[in-house]
């Protein structure tokens, strides 16, 4: 049986090649392609939680994203390994009018999984659904520039023009987050105002039509999602054969990390969709030595956990500590007092890299190696603290302020995340050495975010992750009015001079098209950030992933999902 299929595959590929490279070859998938990458087979991945919806506009959890990545497609895709923007549904594009206008040429002869042709109308529909008020899409914030929507129009069925409200250098990168959904299936829901409820978990899998490499074939609540290959997928392999290589992807829902790891070790799982924890390194190394899995070191992460104080003016009210809790000197002292090597050793078992600013060496384009590195100097830290009135007045080893009140504050962090909890413990113990008393309070995620939003905390150790590496795509973090301006959310006007300066610099950085100039401006921003340290960063972890030995043709990147961000090219030996 297999041999006949293989023969058929060979015949079809030869016939396809003979007819010209643009014919959609419906070649069957058994057997190896000419490039040596095997076609067919099943991949078992694990996800940590159930999807909340099959509609990317209704939920933003990782599993919903995964479903969207597998079944839908976008205009362009950011290559997570090289950071370049790659064409996907858009073949090519040009920028005009100093970056204000983006003209995209769409691929022709692309059809949805149900055979309906893809045209510019579907792109327009995608933008309509994102901006629709009634829907309240979770993607709306990421498809805006400076709080304003983008204008989209179609000049012909295969050309789309996107206009930005102002010159926006990283403009094309925004399109990586917009899935192109089928107008013919969902327009009714949009018009009726029920778009958000469309494609909920109750939907029949056959209803979910898309341009992606896979089709959702089954959803077993609480257990797994099963995807099968989309025979009508538009992209082709380098050898002209059909993509995806895989026949089937099964995403098992495994909430517990230990069970996930045991399955990976014993071969009942091919790969996880996130990195392994430091504890898991040793058993996986053993399994790798025995040839059962392959362990990959993907380099340093692009995000480090963040430590910051509540810098909202008046947040501490009558509290006498307000005099020193919001001072720059306190944060610079803390940055000097914490031994980053010890931090990396304790929290990540040595697999961590000290960082001194918001960028890590993983961001090859934007990281500035010239950024000064804070020395580990406890004596200098104590001096800095003395300069804001904190010194050991009663010789008990701990610092007090001018009225002999102990220098003490509460550090809030999230319970159940070992990196955060251990990191907070290290901070507490290191600061004890210079005389500051830190009380660590660990709450669950909802409670922590609640405290953050109401600015009720004193200090917070949490993650302020960025998704895309271009700082221009992260305005909410950099601008003082931003909703991710962690230390002082959504300021009405910049509270400090340096925040004002950063606002100005970032505005210029975003509008300039010249890459070299953008880099210089961003270096200045990093310098100002370093001088005032609104967030203190300590260590960025190294990312390790593992996969079974049967998986091949991966393009690993340190950003989640590390091994599966390009699902159509993954193949298995079977």
């Amino acid at each position, binding site marked *: 049986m297999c041999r006949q299929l293989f023969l058929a595959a060979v015949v079809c590929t030869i016939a396809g090649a003979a007819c010209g490279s643009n014919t959609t070859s419906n070649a069957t998938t058994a057997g190896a392609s000419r490039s040596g990458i095997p076609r067919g087979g099943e991949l078992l991945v694990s996800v940590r939680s159930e999807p*909340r919806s099959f509609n990317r506009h209704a939920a933003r959890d990782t599993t919903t994203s995964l479903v969207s990545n597998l079944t839908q497609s976008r205009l362009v895709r950011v290559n997570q390994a090289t950071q370049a923007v790659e064409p996907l549904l858009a073949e090519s594009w040009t920028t005009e009018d100093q970056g204000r206008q983006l003209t995209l040429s769409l691929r022709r002869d692309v059809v949805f999984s149900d055979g309906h042709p893809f045209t510019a109308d579907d792109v327009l529909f995608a933008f309509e659904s994102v901006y629709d008020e009634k829907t309240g899409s979770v993607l709306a914030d990421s498809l805006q520039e400076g709080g304003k929507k983008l204008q989209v129009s179609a000049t012909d069925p295969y050309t789309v023009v996107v206009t930005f409200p102002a010159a926006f250098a990283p403009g094309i990168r925004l399109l990586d987050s917009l899935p192109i959904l089928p107008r013919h299936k969902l327009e009714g829901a949009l018009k009726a105002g029920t778009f958000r409820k469309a494609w909920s978990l*109750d939907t029949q899998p056959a209803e979910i039509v898309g341009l992606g490499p896979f089709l959702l074939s089954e959803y077993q609540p*609480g*257990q797994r999602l099963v995807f099968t290959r989309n025979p009508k997928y538009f992209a082709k392999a380098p050898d002209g054969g059909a993509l995806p290589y895989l026949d089937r992807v*099964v995403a*098992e829902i495994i909430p517990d990390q230990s069970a996930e790891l045991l399955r990976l070790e014993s071969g009942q799982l091919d790969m996880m969709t996130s990195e392994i924890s430091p504890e898991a390194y040793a058993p996986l190394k053993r399994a790798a030595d025995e040839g059962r899995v392959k362990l990959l070191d993907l380099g340093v992460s692009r995000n480090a956990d963040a430590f910051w104080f509540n810098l909202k003016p008046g947040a501490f009210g009558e509290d006498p500590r307000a005099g020193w809790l919001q001072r720059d000197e306190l944060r610079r002292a803390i940055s000097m007092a914490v031994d980053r090597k010890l931090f990396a050793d304790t929290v990540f078992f040595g697999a961590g890299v000290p960082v001194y600013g918001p960028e890590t060496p993983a961001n090859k384009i934007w990281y500035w190696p010239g950024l000064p590195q804070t020395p580990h100097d406890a004596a200098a830290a104590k001096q800095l603290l003395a300069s804001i009135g904190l010194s050991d007045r009663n010789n008990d080893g701990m610092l007090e302020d001018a009225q002999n009140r102990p220098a003490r504050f509460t550090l809030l962090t999230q319970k159940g995340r070992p990196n955060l909890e251990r990191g907070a413990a290290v901070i507490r113990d290191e600061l004890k050495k210079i005389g500051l008393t830190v009380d660590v309070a660990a709450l669950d995620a909802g409670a922590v975010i*609640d405290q953050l939003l109401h600015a009720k905390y004193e200090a917070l150790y949490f993650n302020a992750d960025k998704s895309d590496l271009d700082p221009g795509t992260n305005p909410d973090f950099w601008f003082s009015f931003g909703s991710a301006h962690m230390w002082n959310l959504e300021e009405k006007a910049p509270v400090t001079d340096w925040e004002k300066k950063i606002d100005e610099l970032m505005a210029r950085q975003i509008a300039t098209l010249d890459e070299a100039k953008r880099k210089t401006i961003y270096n200045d921003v990093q310098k100002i950030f370093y001088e005032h340290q609104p967030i203190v960063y300590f260590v960025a972890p190294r990312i390790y992933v593992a996969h079974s030995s049967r998986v091949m043709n991966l393009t690993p990147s340190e950003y989640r999902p590390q091994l599966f961000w390009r699902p159509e090219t993954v193949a298995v030996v079977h």
Partner: protein
Amino acid sequence: MIRYFARRLAFALVLVIGVSSATLMLTRLAPGDFITESLGTGASQQTIAQQRARYGLDKSIGAQYRDWIAGAARLDLGYSMQYGRPVRDLIPERAANTAILAITALLFATLIGLPLGVITGSRRGGAMAGAIRAASLVLLSMPPLLTSLFLVFLAARTGWLPISGMRSATVPAGGALIDLLRHLVVPAAAIALPLAAMLERLQAQAMSEVIRAPFVLATLARGVPQSRVLWRGALKAALRPVAGVYGLVIGSLLSGSFAVEVITAWPGLGSLMLQALRTRDIYLVAGCAGAGALFLACGTLVSDVALAAVDPRVSEMRTERA
């Protein structure tokens, strides 16, 4: 008799409504809500307010409760905010999975625990009794998280059983039922072993008291064989405390043990409830708590019936006439 059951039913209803309402209010009072957890950091105040309004979280607690109870009267338990599905659909689905697990575990625990308890209780000394008691105490000292982790670890190391999940992705050659049974072993054992230990301890204690009763001595004196005295007469009397807690056990098992379900990836009610708590999915929380209350109410009813069967002197149903 009818009046008795009617009263119990009425109370069960009160309990269900009371517990659901209480958990709904408590989750509303808790720090953070569904929006903060789902949007995470980086969402603007405007977006948060909009989404809150969309999910009805901007209503006052009183208004929200009124709307919910009005819906509950029509058996509309609201929508799960996480999954966008009616609570009424989610819970029976998961409860069925937990029920499979619970019944299996209960069966094994009873079959192992009760007889062992009789044996240990009727012998004062003896190595076997001591060993069984030690084993029970070990199991009682281990937290359920640890027991399930250990069993999963064993399954992984030996390779005999699937490590987690309820069914395989592709139905294997033996058929779906065998597949389910193989997946059932680890989670059921994780629940059954500590439960068996508890039943054994209770039974041993009760047994050791009963065998000293005069009626036992009298029966022995009449010439009835020792084993019959033990396994018929004494056992019936000694089942009293076990019968008392049995219903509670059933009730709590049917609500699901979240530690076991999370580690073995068993899609049951316990893990659903934990997830609902974590995401502050209030209607789902209320629904799960209500289901738990319902199971407990049924459980205590079963328990009281069993108690009456075992000890006819204390039939509550009979005293109703007086």
